[in-house]
């Protein structure tokens, strides 16, 4: 410790640093005025002995206040000497210590040094002669110097003492303080306590402290936002004087500061929920749910779970904290538990309210475009009415980013004229540094004008706001569960919201709120905003509920029950994914999905990938799921700036957006391994922060897959000692950098920056590039060079087979989210390309997506269309082998309904492999997928062969996934153990390899067909109906042992769970084609048999009676490949054998072969 601090100080001792140089310069000036040798008392200064004294101070081998801030100390000495000189007192005092005391022990003679409690125990050292200065520090001088040290220590102590007092005073002035005893008593005596108080009353920071002081040992406090967890834990630690300990900690998605010592933990709602699902819920004695009035999905759900929990757990107290919005709702919800409500009045100054509606005659044009004039007029009004010497900033609430931009542009023009305003946008799409600007100070006489979404309503609190302008609008996401489409729409806000916005003007002083709507409009508003639970997809939530043991989700005590259809649709979705059984029990798959903190479909992609992809290729699926699971990596500039678009081109993939994301990520990783990143992202319009998040999420998902036994833990990487040494050095350097950064950040956070009037538009690139990026440091700490290399290898999909598998894995997880092109797309413009999904016809491609920019990728070229149709076949649809469908992540309606994040897939192959139901006619020439898409295969047997391949692949794939899940949750019964030992299973690698080979040849099969969307009218005449009885098929060539049963509506019979045979009616050509097939003798390609057989009979022959069937099984086993990441297919020229070897092994083989 001491050694370090001494080392630290050495440079200053040698006086090399510039600051010392300047000081010594001053000293020279001083000295010039006096003759050097004559040391007059009035000219004496300890500064002349700084070198010597510093030596003594730093050699005193203990760190203390003086050593820790040597520079500050010398500034103090200088000032102190100045005041002494002004007062005409000597610097070296000659007070002799005749300490005569009076009767109560008080010295009679006054000495100012008696007023100082401190004494320094620094020892005088007979110093070496200072050659340069020719001055010697004697003992008497030194004693005098020690007195100054004492005065300095006393001065510093008072400073810190005042700081502490100020802190305690601020705490005691918080409105919540008066209720301290009441709150503590209520929590001690009751099960549920509701603390209602408006922002600024101090409940979030104080209540956890009160409870801790009252003796609670493990307090969890939830926050809806990650950032609030971090900042609150910092603040509370500071107030408890434990900012350098871990008594107060936080826990958020990728980070935690919680240790065994932690007594108060700020945690996100989602994370606490996940803790509830794990068996070991930490031993909380109090759970505080903060900001419950915000009514987030997770918050609502937590309320329900905890409401149940406190009935079984008597040792847990529940504290709910909310703004004073709708307290009644929460009180009623917990009426059975007899919740106690404590209301804390907010600290709000009076706010003047003015309604300034836009009158229709004032509107310049009649269209709906937003007119910024009313907003600028208010700025003018403020300028004319309030002197600029009176501080106070303006906050404007708008509904969305576009509206913010419009207002900002107009306001900026006004600001340029007057030079009295700084315009700052604020929305969640901005980078954190841009967002932080709203907290900086404007220069004297200039006001900030912050134009914000509703993020500034509750989430972000900006001090110094005096004026609020409320547009009365909000853009909110809503969700249509029947079409699975999210909708971003503008709404009028609720009364509660409007009041919240108004309140923002009265936090630091009296304020004014202008409402750009009428009082009637206000009274027409809803009382409260719609809670999130009624506006978002519920599948993930319901799955989580199910995994938490909620048996009947319909009867869960939601504070606001979501619409019934939304629950039913979500349950159906979960059943389709196989997460729930038909009677709504959680399956093994469902259990695995619930453990992954991403959307259900993305979680499914991961589980499917874990079963189907070899271990070293799993990284690509992890990265892909993570990329789709985080917020968009593109900045707002990314799709507007031509430069950005252009520089991303090389990494775009014409397979679609997900693959492009993956390829951009790989490119970024490569850039990272070269040491860059930030500039690279900027050039491409990417948010590097998101890419770091992606990396972290992928790593987290990876760990979770391992924890769930879905992935083997990798063998520890072997490093040579040289590599290890190198890495060790790197880590040390990185840790140093991080420490420095944190110190700097801590200093910077103390003083907020001053804004420049023109800072709005000009972003200083250089400045940004030179600063240390903490995320870059952390990225490099967790990912060394070899790890990055492994990530790149794992995440890239060079070979066609890997890409096909990855796309199919994702498509399988997303199914039935597929869309087909409208048949008239070829004659429409880029922006008018129409698509249809199963649930939602007429949707558009999002203009920023790969296909939105280049829809030709999805269309057939003339060369793709087969014009030479088989005899008798006629169709309006083009006959081709190149039809494609889109598989998409989500639907989003903004100005139009859009497909977001889409990927192209070959149509028939994908549908036959993934469709939930496939209906066929007797000749397998007309196939209907999911009662939606009709595929016609006019060439005899082509449809049959493709379907048959699909059925077999589907089964093999299904088996692989089931085996994976079974191995992950082994049934520990004797029977299964016996089974295991009896049969030696083929390795996963072998199965995965064979499956991927067969799937890729299946996907690439060249078969001509037409594709048509069936409309309700078409469907009415599509099926035979249940009247015609079809005999069961025995033996069943599709699935041996599957008992056929008739379909009660369509007619025909089920031959597998997904396929209904002979229920689709025939048309002229298909009937003729069937008859023809039947009448011509058929020759089995494997045995020489030649008879007249129907397509089904042919199948039965091939599967069951063909004589070659036996031999087939004996196909020579392929050599076992070790799936090392760098193996390649290699055909040896000498021995003509195809092998899978690493480059080293290839060389070895070549040598041996010769």
């Amino acid at each position, binding site marked *: 410790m001491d050694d370090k601090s001494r080392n630290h100080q050495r440079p200053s001792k040698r006086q090399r640093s510039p600051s010392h140089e300047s000081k010594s310069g001053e000293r020279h000036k001083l000295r010039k005025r006096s003759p050097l040798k004559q040391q007059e008392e009035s000219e004496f200064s300890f500064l002349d002995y700084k070198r010597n004294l510093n030596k003594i101070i730093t050699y005193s081998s203990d760190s203390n206040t003086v050593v820790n801030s040597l520079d500050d100390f010398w500034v103090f000495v200088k000032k102190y000497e100045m005041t002494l000189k002004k007062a005409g007192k000597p610097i070296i005092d000659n007070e002799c210590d005749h300490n005569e005391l009076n009767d109560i022990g008080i010295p009679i003679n006054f000495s100012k040094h008696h007023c100082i*409690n401190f004494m320094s*125990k620094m020892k005088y050292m007979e110093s070496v002669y200072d050659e340069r200065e020719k001055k010697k520090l004697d003992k008497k001088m030194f004693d005098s110097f020690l007195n100054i040290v004492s005065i300095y220590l006393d001065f510093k102590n008072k400073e810190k003492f005042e700081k502490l007092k100020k802190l305690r005073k601020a705490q005691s002035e918080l409105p919540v303080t008066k209720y301290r005893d009441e709150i503590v008593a209520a929590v001690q005596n009751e099960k549920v306590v509701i603390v209602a108080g408006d922002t600024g009353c101090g409940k979030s920071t104080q209540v956890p402290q009160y409870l801790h002081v009252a003796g609670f040992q493990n307090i969890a406090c939830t926050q809806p936002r990650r950032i609030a967890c971090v900042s609150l834990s910092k603040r509370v630690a500071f107030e408890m004087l434990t900012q350098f300990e871990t008594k107060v900690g936080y826990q958020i998605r990728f980070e935690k500061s919680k240790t065994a010592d932690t007594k108060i933990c700020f945690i996100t709602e989602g994370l606490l929920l996940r803790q509830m699902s794990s068996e070991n819920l930490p031993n909380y004695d109090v759970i505080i749910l903060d900001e419950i009035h915000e009514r987030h999905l997770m918050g609502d759900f937590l309320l329900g779970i905890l409401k149940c929990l406190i009935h079984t757990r008597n040792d847990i107290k529940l504290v709910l904290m909310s703004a004073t919005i709708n307290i009644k709702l929460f009180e009623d919800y917990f009426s059975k538990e007899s919740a106690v409500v404590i209301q804390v009045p907010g600290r709000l100054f009076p706010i003047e309210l003015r309604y300034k509606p836009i009158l229709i005659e004032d509107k310049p044009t009649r269209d709906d475009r937003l007119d910024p004039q009313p907003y600028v007029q208010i700025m003018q009004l403020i300028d004319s009415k309030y002197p600029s010497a009176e501080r106070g900033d303006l906050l404007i609430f708008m509904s969305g980013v576009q509206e913010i931009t419009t207002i900002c542009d107009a306001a900026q023009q006004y600001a340029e004229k007057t030079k009295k305003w700084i315009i700052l946008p604020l929305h969640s799409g901005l980078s954190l540094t841009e967002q932080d600007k709203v907290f900086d100070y404007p220069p004297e006489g200039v006001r900030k004008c912050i134009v914000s979404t509703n993020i500034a309503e509750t989430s972000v609190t900006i001090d110094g706001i005096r004026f609020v302008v409320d547009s009365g609008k909000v853009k909110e996401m809503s969700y249509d569960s029947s079409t699975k489409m999210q909708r971003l729409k503008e709404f009028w806000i609720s009364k509660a919201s409007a009041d919240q916005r108004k309140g923002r003007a009265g936090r630091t002083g009296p304020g004014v709120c202008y409402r750009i709507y009428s009082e009637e409009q206000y009274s027409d508003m809803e009382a409260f905003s719609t809670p999130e639970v009624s506006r978002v997809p519920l599948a993930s939530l319901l799955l989580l509920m199910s995994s938490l043991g909620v048996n009947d989700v319909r009867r869960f005590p939601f504070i606001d029950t979501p619409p019934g259809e939304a629950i039913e649709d979500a349950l159906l979705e979960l059943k389709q994914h196989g997460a729930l059984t038909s009677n709504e029990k959680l399956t093994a798959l469902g259990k695995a999905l619930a453990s992954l903190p991403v959307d259900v479909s993305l979680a499914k992609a991961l589980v499917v990938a874990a079963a189907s992809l070899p271990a070293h290729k799993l990284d690509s699926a992890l990265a892909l799921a993570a990329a789709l699971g985080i917020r968009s990596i593109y900045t707002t500039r990314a799709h507007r700036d031509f430069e950005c678009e252009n520089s991303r081109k090389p990494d775009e993939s014409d397979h679609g957006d997900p693959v492009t994301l993956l390829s951009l990520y790989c490119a970024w990783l490569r850039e990272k391994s070269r040491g860059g990143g930030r500039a690279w992202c900027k050039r491409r319009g990417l948010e590097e922060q998101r890419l770091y998040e992606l990396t972290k999420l992928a790593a987290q998902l990876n760990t979770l897959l391992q924890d769930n036994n879905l992935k083997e833990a990798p063998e520890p990487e072997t490093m040579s000692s040289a590599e290890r040494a190198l890495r060790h050095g790197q880590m040390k350097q990185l840790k140093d950098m991080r420490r420095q950064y944190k110190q700097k950040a801590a200093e910077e956070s103390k003083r907020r920056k001053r804004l420049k009037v023109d800072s709005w538009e000009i972003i200083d690139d250089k400045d940004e590039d030179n600063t240390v990026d903490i995320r870059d440091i952390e990225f490099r700490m967790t990912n060394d060079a070899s790890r990055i290399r492994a990530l790149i290898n794992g995440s890239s999909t060079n070979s066609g087979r890997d890409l096909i598998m990855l796309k199919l894995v994702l498509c399988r997880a997303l199914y039935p989210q597929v869309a087909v092109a409208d048949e008239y797309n070829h004659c429409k413009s880029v922006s008018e390309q129409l698509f249809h999904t199963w649930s939602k016809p007429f949707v558009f491609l999002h203009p920023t997506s790969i296909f939105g920019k280049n829809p030709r990728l999805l269309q057939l070229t003339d060369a793709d269309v087969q014009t030479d149709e088989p005899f008798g076949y006629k169709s309006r649809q083009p006959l081709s082998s190149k039809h494609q469908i889109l598989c998409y992540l989500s639907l989003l309606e903004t100005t139009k309904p859009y497909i977001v994040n889409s990927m192209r897939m070959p149509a028939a192959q994908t549908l036959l492999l993934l469709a939930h139901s496939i209906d066929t006619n007797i000749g397998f020439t007309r196939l209907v997928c999911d009662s939606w898409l009709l595929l016609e295969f006019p060439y005899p047997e082509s449809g049959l062969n493709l379907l048959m391949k699909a059925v077999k692949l589907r089964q093999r794939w299904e088996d692989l996934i089931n085996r994976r899940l079974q191995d992950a949750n082994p049934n520990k019964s004797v029977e299964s153990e016996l089974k295991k030992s009896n049969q030696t299973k083929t390795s996963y690698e072998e199965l995965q390899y064979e499956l991927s080979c067969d799937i890729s040849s299946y996907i690439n099969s060249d078969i001509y067909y037409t594709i048509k969307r069936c409309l309700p009218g078409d469907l009415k005449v599509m099926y035979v109906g249940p009247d015609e009885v079809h005999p069961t098929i025995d033996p069943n060539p599709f699935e041996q042992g599957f008992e056929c049963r008739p379909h009660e509506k369509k007619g025909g019979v089920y031959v597998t769970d997904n396929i209904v045979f002979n229920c689709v009616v025939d048309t002229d050509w298909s009937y003729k084609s069937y008859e023809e097939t039947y009448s011509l003798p058929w020759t089995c390609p494997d045995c020489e048999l030649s008879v007249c057989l129907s397509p089904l009979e042919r199948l039965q022959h091939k599967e069951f009676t063909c004589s070659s069937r036996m031999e087939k099984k004996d196909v020579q086993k392929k050599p076992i490949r070790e799936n090392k990441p760098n193996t390649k297919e290699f055909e040896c020229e000498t021995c003509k054998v195809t092998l899978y070897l690493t480059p080293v092994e290839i060389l070895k083989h070549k040598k041996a072969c010769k």
Partner: protein
Amino acid sequence: MDESKPKDECAQVTYNFKCSECGMNEETHYKGVSPPFSRKIQLKYPSYVMKDPFSPPGKGEILILGADCAICGKAVCISKQCSIFYLKTYCLKCVQNSMDKFPAEVTNKVKKS
């Protein structure tokens, strides 16, 4: 390294300090004249000392909150409104009771405030 031991011991023993004048109430880590966590600092009068909560640990920074009044023995903080220091700590009440015992330079300040 050997610093850590006494530190841990100090962490266990805490002295509750409550100013009898202003009510300031804090846990302190030491009471006396030579705080163990800053060995080069000596105090003239036994005081309530805490490790400075505003700077990182191990730097030897301390914060003196107050002491017991040399006359009445009540704990009192170092704020000017609560006490004066003149070789020892005296609470303002006691100072006021025996004004004549203190040098004028000391009592002047008290009268003013």
